[in-house]
């Protein structure tokens, strides 16, 4: 990539900015990880009790209104998750622009901070200061309310979405189903924003988005059923606990149908998140900006916050269901228990392992986030009838087939567990080989561009 230059009036400014960037780049992830690891597990009541008892030296039962303390802890954990979503969303916005620029042989944002790292803060501030316009003739109340539905749908998902062994706000019995359900807030928000804008393009986009999301919920639901059948639970943590740390213990490899289901889910999530090649709802070249054409300022920022925070959700859901979640290779449930120690408040090693599990989860998720970004900047958009065809004629039948196959497969696996082990290894080996071939082909394609890269800056 071409080098980028800074031209600041005073040398001190540059140093300051570099420092700020580095500080932010280190501090923000550390802050997020700390928030997640220390605050979120505290929602667990025994853990919080133990913390108050052993670290603060109080007996919670003697307090006035103990349950409000628990409620406050819950609230704090919720705030932590929202902060996490907002900050990752912001960083993803910068990251996607940099990746897009790299793909397009551009430089991308590079003015605010080193490599433009603080660009997302600048953008957020700019958008907050812009006028919050409501078009005349728009249904002002619904127009104002619509973005909150969208944000609520995204935030509520995070409640049941794990990020580590004990890092989940609420390990619901209906976990993954809850995630599917609260996502429907987003549809309502989109529909409202499109209609209340009183613009034909907005309505067009909203209707496309709704048709798309409602349709793709079906294959997504079917694909989710495959790991659910394999784990025998809907709880997100239960799903992860049913998998293992090594790749061949992941659901993705344990069952050929699960691999298919992974791709069905991934495609459906792209569609539900309105990402290319399914970005029909905000198709710039057709619908201007789709359902949020008329939005500006703060509310516009909310849509984009959701769009990028959604990246994390796409990756995290797929990781949870198919890629072993936070499971650390070689660390079993017994290890977790022994590291935790006998005391009611866990020992240091347990907290350290939480960090590791968070790291593993984040790496897998971020890999999928990268894939989503690559796809977005590579593929054209499909047409609405093609999108519907793909959903109803291919993904839904394939989802059914995968589900039925899994039912049979579970019986076989119970009858002869060795079959599952062998399959896992075979599928894993096949995946490695396919990845290797893909990389080779990519190398070849790159080398086919015979001419040397031209320096754009001075030619």
């Amino acid at each position, binding site marked *: 990539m071409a080098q980028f230059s800074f031209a600041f009036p005073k040398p001190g400014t540059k140093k300051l900015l570099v420092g700020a960037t580095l500080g932010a780049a280190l501090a923000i992830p550390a802050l997020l990880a700390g928030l997640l690891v220390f605050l979120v597990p505290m929602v667990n009541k025994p853990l919080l009790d133990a913390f108050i008892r052993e670290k603060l030296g109080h007996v919670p039962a003697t307090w006035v209104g103990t349950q409000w303390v628990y409620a406050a802890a819950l609230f704090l954990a919720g705030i932590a998750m929202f902060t996490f979503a907002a900050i990752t969303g912001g960083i993803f916005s910068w990251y996607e622009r940099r990746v*897009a620029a790299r*793909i*397009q*042989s*551009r430089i991308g944002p590079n003015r605010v901070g080193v490599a433009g790292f603080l660009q997302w803060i600048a953008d957020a501030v700019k958008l907050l200061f812009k006028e919050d316009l409501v078009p005349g003739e728009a249904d002002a109340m619904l127009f104002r309310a619509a973005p909150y539905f969208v944000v609520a749908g995204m935030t509520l998902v995070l409640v049941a979405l794990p990020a580590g062994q004990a890092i989940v706000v609420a390990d619901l019995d209906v976990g993954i189903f809850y995630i599917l359900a609260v996502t429907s807030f987003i549809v309502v928000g989109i529909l409202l924003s499109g209609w209340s804008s009183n613009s*034909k*393009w907005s309505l*067009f986009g909203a209707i*496309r988005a709704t048709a798309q999301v409602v349709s793709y919920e079906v294959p997504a639901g079917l694909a989710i059923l495959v790991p659910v059948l394999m784990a025998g639970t809907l709880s997100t943590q239960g799903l992860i606990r049913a998998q293992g740390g090594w790749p061949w213990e992941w659901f993705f490899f344990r069952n050929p149908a699960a691999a298919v289901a992974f791709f069905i889910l991934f495609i459906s999530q792209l569609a539900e998140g309105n990402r*290319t*090649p399914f*970005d*029909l709802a905000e*198709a*710039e*070249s*057709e619908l*201007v900006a789709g359902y949020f054409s008329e939005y500006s300022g703060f509310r516009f920022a909310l849509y984009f916050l959701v769009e990028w925070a959604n990246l994390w959700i796409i990756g995290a859901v797929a990781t949870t269901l198919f890629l072993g979640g936070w499971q650390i290779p070689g660390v079993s449930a017994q290890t977790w228990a022994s590291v935790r120690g006998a005391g009611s408040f866990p020992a240091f090693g347990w907290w350290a392992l939480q960090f590791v599990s968070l790291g593993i989860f984040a790496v897998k998720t971020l890999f999928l986030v990268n894939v989503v970004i690559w796809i977005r*900047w*590579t*593929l*054209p*958009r*499909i*047409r*609405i*009838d*093609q999108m519907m065809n793909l959903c109803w004629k291919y993904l839904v039948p394939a989802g059914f087939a995968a589900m039925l196959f899994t039912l049979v497969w579970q019986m076989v696996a119970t009858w002869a567990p060795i079959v599952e082990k062998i399959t896992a290894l075979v599928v894993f080996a096949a995946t490695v080989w396919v990845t290797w071939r893909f990389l080779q082909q990519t190398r070849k*394609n790159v080398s*086919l*561009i*015979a*001419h040397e890269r*031209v320096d*754009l800056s001075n*030619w």
Partner: protein
Amino acid sequence: MSKLVLRRLDRNNEEMLINFGPQHPSTHGVLNFLVETDGEVMRRAIPDIGYLHRSLEKIGEMVQYPGYMPYTDRIDYLAAMFANEGYAIAVERLLKIEVPKRAQYLRAISCELNRITSHLVSIGTMATDIGAVTPLVYALRERELLNDLLEALCGARLTYNYHRIGGVAFDMPEGWRDKVLAYLDRLDSSIQEWDRLISTNEIYRKRLGGVAVISRAQAIDYGLSGPNLRGSGVDWDLRRDVPYGAYPDFSFEVPVGCGWAGVVGDCYDRYYVRVLEMAQSSRIIRQALEKMPDGELTAKVSRKPKPEAGEVQSRIESARGELAYYLVSDGTERPYRLRARTGSFMAMGIIEDISPGLMVADLVALIASLDVVAPETDR
């Protein structure tokens, strides 16, 4: 919107009427389409032109013959060389001037380079209109390099004003020939990269293949020309069939649509004809650079030419189809009448009749595949 267009709408409430433009990301300039849709399917799209009308033909009657040359740049700012050349040839015919060989070669080179830049924009925006953003950037990257070359040749990146009555303005700068040859090498591999990236992309082929098919007969009836005509399978190219300038000296092929991704005459054919034409342009430029004769840059032309009364027409193969100038002289130093027949204007005419039954997303593909440029439509 103009009353004229409104009068043509017989509306019933089942359909939604949308103004597709004049401010719209994929109208390629200031165009408007009145789109009647029934859900995603269009009943029809009525083009509403004139937003970029600048009286260029009338201006032609006000200025002297050489003074009009910079105005021709504005007829089609993406392919200004052709507008230059067409006007120059028309006036030369009026004055009965023979253009020197070297100037003819330089005209061919500049025009073919311009054809490549124009087609790069066309296919790049086409990919963007279909939803892939990256290919546009690749196309523009290649075009920037080419613009550098054209800037070195004539001092401008967009409105070249390079051709003169009787020849061209400047000779090749030193070292320019090698830079062009180096660029053409790069272009050939870029086209391959382009094919891998987008032309063979399954989604792209599905989006364009079989969409908005213009049959051979329709294309001829509606007066389509250039790549749009050849996309419909008509083997017609003025450079070969009604040769002018230096073109008889070069050997090249004329790509014709043959249903690469579906039916002959669909959007993909029109798109891919352009991709192939870039390679042919490269071939022509190589030959021209190789055979470049020495000689004068311009013929002897007076500063204030006063042609005899009469009328002429010139036809050239522009990037957007046949560009024809019709000039009437009354013996003074200003034209009595100047008229430009442009490819985009003719292409706009077919949209209303092809659009019924297409989806809204297909309209975007149709407009992009016809490579309509607003200034050329309105002039």
